[in-house]
């Protein structure tokens, strides 16, 4: 198991380097002069020169990349808008996003797995059809519009819940429901299909043939196996939630990393954009690593052999 973890960690290195390179390129590959892009169209020649100086844009690219990497962690990379080291800004926002995403994933998993299991067990009944349609609705709902609808109903019309901002638990409810809906739908579909797959396996017949009650056959023998592929999907959904946060946070004025990213893009705060992208991607990569570990716990075949 230790070696398995070490192996996975080592495989992350090139991915993380690649991620930082992509973020770094965002400025470099923009059409035109990077300094001009960062300064904006109306900037004076002097402003542009200052930016060029400040970000070392005259240096050769590898040097710039190295400086960028160092700057990310040393505090040398400074936000144009906040005029503070990027990390100092990103990390508090990240915490807020994690609160939102965690709540959403909990909702999505509870709802999705339960729906998926019911759907599979009651296959081809009205329960299954209803669950299928609901799940597909969930997947198809544009998160920003769904958020607006929820806000319209629960805060504008009914005034039960706050329409935006962060503070109490009540503030968390609407954004996390809006954000988690689509993931719940995807998890439900995945659970259903892997459950159907597992229910056809020979070992399920074996379990029935030895006289186990149906609930044990389904709840223990089938679910345990069906969860293995579902866990991967849940990991990927966590990434989707981080990304979906960009939209949800904008709708609900949630002070998270998603909104930070959008405002930074709109205000051409490129160091901020780069830092946000790197941090979110790195987080996602580590979540996937954690999912791989969980996978190994669930599946003894991987636990002993590695993959």
């Amino acid at each position, binding site marked *: 198991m230790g070696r398995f973890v070490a192996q996975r960690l*080592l495989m992350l290195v090139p991915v993380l380097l690649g991620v930082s390179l992509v973020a770094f390129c965002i400025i470099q590959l923009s059409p035109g002069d990077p300094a001009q892009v960062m300064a904006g169209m109306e900037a004076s020649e002097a402003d542009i020169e200052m930016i060029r100086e400040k970000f070392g844009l005259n240096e050769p690219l590898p040097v710039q990349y190295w400086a960028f990497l160092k700057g990310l962690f040393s505090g040398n990379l400074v936000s144009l808008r906040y005029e503070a080291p990027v990390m100092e800004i990103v990390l508090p926002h990240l915490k807020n996003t994690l609160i939102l995403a965690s709540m959403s994933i909990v909702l999505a998993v509870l709802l999705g797995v339960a729906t998926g299991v019911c759907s599979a067990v009651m296959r081809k009944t009205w329960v299954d059809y209803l669950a299928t349609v609901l799940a597909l609705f969930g997947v198809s709902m544009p998160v920003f519009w769904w958020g607006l609808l929820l806000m319209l109903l629960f805060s504008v019309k009914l005034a039960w819940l706050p329409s935006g901002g962060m503070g109490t638990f009540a503030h968390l409810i609407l954004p996390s429901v809006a954000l988690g809906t689509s993931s719940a739908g995807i998890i439900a579909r995945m659970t259903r299909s892997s459950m159907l797959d597992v229910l056809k396996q020979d070992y399920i017949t074996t379990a029935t043939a030895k006289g186990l009650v149906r609930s044990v056959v389904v709840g223990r023998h089938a679910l345990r196996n069906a969860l293995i592929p579902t866990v991967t999907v849940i990991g990927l959904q966590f990434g989707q939630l981080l990304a979906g946060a960009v939209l949800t946070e904008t709708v609900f004025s949630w002070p998270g990393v998603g909104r930070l990213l959008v405002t930074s893009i709109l205000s051409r705060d490129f160091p901020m954009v780069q830092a946000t992208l790197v941090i979110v991607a790195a987080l996602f990569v580590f979540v996937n690593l954690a999912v791989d570990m969980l996978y190994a716990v669930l599946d003894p075949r991987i636990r002993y052999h*590695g993959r």
Partner: protein
Amino acid sequence: MPVLEVRNLVKHFTSGGGLLGGAKRVVRAVDDVSFTLSGNETLGVVGESGSGKSTLGFLALGLLSPTAGEIRFLGRPVNDLGDRENREFRRKAQIVFQNPFASLNPRMTVRDILDRVLKVHGLPSVSEDGEVVPSLLREVGLRPEHAGRYPHEFSGGQRQRIAIARALASGPELIVLDEPTSALDVSVQAQVLNLLQDLQRARGHSYLFISHNLAVIRHVSHRVVVMYLGKFMEMAPKERLYSAPLHPYTRALLASVPKPFVTDENIEDKVIAGDIPSPSAPPAGCRFNTRCPLRTPLCEEEEPEWKEVGKEHFVRCHRVDEWV
């Protein structure tokens, strides 16, 4: 000149290793085997799982490259053929697989399947006996009207006939048959085995017939070789191998097959004890020593020689001289 000559052939599969891939494991799938196959001859290769018999077939066709050793096809080394020679080799050496449900492209009609062989080798689609595809189909006992159908419209036995027709299409000198009847029912198996024998009589090609079924091997082969964990244990003309087997493994194997008639013998008395060891960790010394009832201390230490004990009869056993 023999059709196929194999000398000291070795194939190792390596898994793991690398930077952090864990302990390197080497499976010695085929370990130092030699044999020849003459024209119009059938060599039966029999063994249990992990014996390396299928790997041997793939090696013989150049579908896998050997770790060591030499394969000559019609006198030419297979390992370093030029482009043209390689094409020639592909034309003259063919294969029929075990599972007729997986060995035919489901998206091609029977005609397409057979035509492709002709096209790849630039063979004419019309010969002096008329069109090639219908005559191939007739030859394997199908009807020419079947040409326009897709594989899934046929039963397992019929599909295996199509696979055989594909192998015949390029006029091969050697056909490797990799468990060609193992997926078929007994009554269909009999049809296919008879067909294979008829085709050999008519065309004179050679078969390398791979199977786990000792009775099928007896029925079709001229000579038989018994494999165990990558090694040849015994090779002999069919009559000798089945009437006077010398290797303890061959004997035990023959005894443990349930016979289709009622005997007074008990199945209990015929059992070879123990599991087949993993091919990635074969026992030292003689590979059969962990299960051999006649094992001596020597068998656990030293690998026996591949000895010729009679005409065309080879055995790999330390104690073979005691019962020759």
